[in-house]
């Protein structure tokens, strides 16, 4: 075996977004040596893009809020296939995690009496999102980053992990490369936390950056962990659609939280046309009532623009499909209309939604205080991911933990806006805490040199094929395929076709070639990311085929309704002995009586 630079840590955290940073902080507070590996520079992870806020039942704005309401909202939004224990822990612990950020220097917007202000968001019964204008993610990641750098965490920036190393059954390290110099490195650790985020780059229209190639999903799957709920991919209803180069960039739900409305090309507020039964009693009857809700009237019910994301995305697709869309294939999102109701609306919009104002002004020449925005669905988030123990966040591979978007269970079939940032904090902390505990109870394992040689050899193979296929083109083909065949509206025949095509793409990936040398070579990086993208895409497709019903984010044209036989199961994916992808249906854990009663009471 070649001589590789080796680093030793007690806990190795892979990924430095909200979950990874929070896990690293917690593990280091427990007194163990922590290493943090991330693909980008510190503070650039996708958490920075989160806009709307952190959901936590602080009850600062509406005293009727508490963890039980938050729990119920999360379960209802997830169509009751969530792991109830994660939803419970999340609702109970989120307020403490937010207050902790304030103690570490975060500066949230304030209420009149000087406490943390909270705003309305889709699927949340009361104003619940602690926020900083529309740049909450930046505030959160900077707070965690600035707090973390003073805690002696070893940060390995711009490194990619290629494989989880195991000693027998247990995860004992990771093998990867430094992007800058292209050199391989070994990271030995007693416990590993995956916090790598999502899979958005598997789709053509996405709000995700180049980083989100399903690394954690694929690393865990290869290491023997299970993936749960992979069919549930969230298409955020409002991404930019024009100009083409910015297609998919997120337009925060905060626009609707502040009173923004969705209209079609006839000027009709089409969200009033189809309100799901389980939300009817909570939804406003009239424009007037919806506006009063946005203004904080506690007797008003929320406007239909604040229904869950899965439903709004589908409603938008329907409007476009039936010929009522905007010129560039979206619908209209209008916040400028509030000037009919507020004397200083333009100032209000600029203050509450500064980066949206900036983004549209600079990228689309649109002044959102005067004009409507054109928006359409964009791939945003995956509810599915690594199956973990709800309390300690460990996968079925001993020593391998996961938190944040790459882990799964809390969101069920659909995630509520704002629940992601709180998920990162609650389960990032838990993953760090229990990984540190695991590290204290275990020693460093043995490293398998043969395995490392195989991984290194595979990683360098594209250099021997300099006339090979262009990795960017293979990635582009995959994105087209997933967008067209395994997107918002799904059907058996198209997904079977996608499975076949994925095989072809896998072969193409095996022929990908790169030019140049190993130093910061994006062509090479793209070629190496293909494997993870393909694994995640296959898992999504297989799970979506298995769930023969429509629920939450999964909409099957051939099974347009919810089916009783899928109401209490999760899809579970794992790698079989022969290397093939196995899928099975796993019954949901039985919900205890006290939680069932809470849900019943709040119906």
């Amino acid at each position: 075996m070649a001589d590789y630079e080796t680093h030793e840590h007690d806990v190795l955290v892979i990924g430095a977004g909200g979950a990874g940073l929070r896990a690293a902080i917690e593990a280091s507070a427990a007194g163990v040596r922590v290493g943090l590996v991330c693909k980008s520079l510190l503070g650039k992870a996708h958490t920075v893009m989160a806009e709307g806020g952190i959901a936590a039942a602080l009850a600062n704005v509406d005293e009727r809020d508490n963890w039980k309401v938050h729990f119920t909202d999360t379960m209802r939004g997830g169509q009751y296939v969530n792991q109830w224990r994660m939803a419970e822990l999340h609702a109970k612990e989120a307020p403490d995690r937010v207050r902790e950020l304030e103690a570490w220097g975060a500066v949230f917007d304030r209420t009149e009496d000087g406490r943390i202000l909270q705003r309305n968001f889709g699927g949340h019964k009361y104003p619940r999102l602690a926020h900083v204008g529309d740049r909450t993610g930046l505030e959160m990641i900077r707070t965690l980053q600035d707090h973390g750098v003073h805690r002696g965490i070893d940060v390995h920036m711009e490194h990619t992990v290629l494989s989880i190393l195991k000693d027998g059954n247990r995860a004992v390290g990771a093998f990867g490369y430094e992007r800058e110099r292209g050199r391989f490195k070994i990271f030995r650790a007693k416990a590993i936390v995956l916090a790598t985020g999502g899979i958005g780059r598997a789709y053509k229209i996405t709000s995700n950056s180049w980083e989100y190639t399903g690394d954690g999903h694929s690393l865990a799957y290869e290491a023997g962990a299970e993936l749960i709920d992979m069919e549930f991919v969230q298409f955020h209803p409002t991404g930019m659609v024009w100009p083409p180069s910015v297609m998919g960039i997120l337009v925060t739900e905060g626009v609707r939280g502040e009173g923004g409305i969705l209209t079609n090309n006839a000027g009709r507020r089409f969200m009033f046309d189809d309100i799901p039964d389980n939300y009817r009693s909570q939804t406003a009857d009239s424009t007037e009532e919806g506006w009063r809700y946005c203004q904080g009237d506690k007797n008003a019910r929320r406007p239909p623009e604040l229904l869950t994301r899965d439903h709004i995305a589908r409603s938008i697709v329907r409007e476009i499909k039936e010929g009522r869309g905007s010129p560039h294939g979206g619908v209209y999102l209008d916040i400028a209309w509030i000037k009919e109701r507020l004397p200083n609306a333009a100032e209000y919009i600029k203050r509450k939604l500064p980066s949206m104002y900036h983004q549209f002004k600079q990228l689309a020449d649109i002044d959102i205080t005067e004009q409507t925005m054109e928006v359409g669905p964009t791939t945003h988030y995956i509810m599915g991911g690594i199956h973990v123990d709800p309390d300690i966040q460990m996968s079925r591979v001993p020593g391998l933990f996961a938190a944040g978007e790459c882990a799964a269970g809390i969101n069920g079939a659909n995630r509520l806006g704002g629940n992601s940032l709180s998920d990162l904090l609650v389960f990032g902390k838990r993953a760090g805490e229990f990984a540190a505990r695991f590290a204290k109870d275990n020693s460093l394992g043995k490293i398998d040199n043969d395995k490392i040689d195989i991984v290194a050899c595979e990683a360098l193979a594209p250099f021997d094929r300099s006339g090979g296929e262009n990795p960017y083109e293979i990635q582009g083909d995959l994105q087209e395929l997933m967008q067209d065949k395994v997107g918002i509206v799904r059907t058996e025949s198209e997904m079977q076709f996608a499975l076949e095509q994925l095989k072809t793409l896998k072969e193409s990936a095996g022929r990908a070639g790169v030019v140049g040398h190993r130093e910061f070579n994006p062509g090479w990086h793209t070629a190496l990311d293909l494997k993870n993208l393909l694994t995640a895409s296959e898992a999504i497709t297989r799970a979506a085929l298995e769930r023969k019903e429509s629920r939450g984010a999964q909409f099957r044209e051939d099974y347009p309704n919810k089916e009783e036989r899928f109401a209490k199961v999760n899809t579970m994916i794992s790698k079989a002995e022969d290397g093939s992808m196995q899928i099975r249906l796993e019954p949901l854990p039985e919900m205890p009586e006290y939680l069932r009663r809470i849900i019943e009471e709040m119906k």
Partner: protein
Amino acid sequence: MSEAQTVTFKIWRGDANAGAFQEYTAECSEGMVVLDAVHQIQRTQANDLACRWNCKAGKCGSCSAEVNGMPKLMCMARLSDLPLEKPITIEPMKAFPVVKDLITDVSWNFLVKRRIKPFSPRPPDAPDGTWRMQQADIDRVQEFRKCIECFLCQDVCHVLRDHQMHNKFIGPRFLIHVAALEMHPLDTEDRLEELRNTQGIGYCNITKCCTKVCPENIEITDNGIIPLKERVVDKFYDPFGWIWRGLKRRQDRQPLKPV
């Protein structure tokens, strides 16, 4: 720019040892930004062209470069704002060592931040461990906290760019970071001593170049650096201020009112 047109780009390619501008062309259509063109070139003509990017919406501060000589985020630089009849030059930031192509070694910035004393809040105001702050009292700090750490201000600052005084001066980004901490209503730490000495605030002579390039429109100089300079002067060079604060501190020793 309503129809697609072919535009020439001169992109700096090379590493720490040597490099030169290379010419590429890209098909440019309405709404495109410089980063789109770089990606198109990377995808079709130069797979190994190195550049950093993430959010593509001006929120992460990864894709900093010099476009026609001006420090900019490539993701927010609209092609329609540039003279397209001439080649557009794109080169790495000059205040930091080149790694490869458009990528520079910005690790110095991360080391500087570690040297700045962290946030240290006063005891909580309320029994449940929370604080009370008025919005008006945090507006200024929130302005500074908009910083996305693109380091364009560092790039354009002549103390760093021309004089390479990285070991004596922390640069506008970190003066703003210190300002955000010093003006945080809950913070109790004093950072003026090192601001004056090791962090070199005196080297800034207020040319405001940093403010001009800030993609977040933070008033770096007027709202951040100048007030910090005033605080340093007050503390170290003003005897009346010194006496006045001594008296004031005595008054402040009264117990805090419960909230």
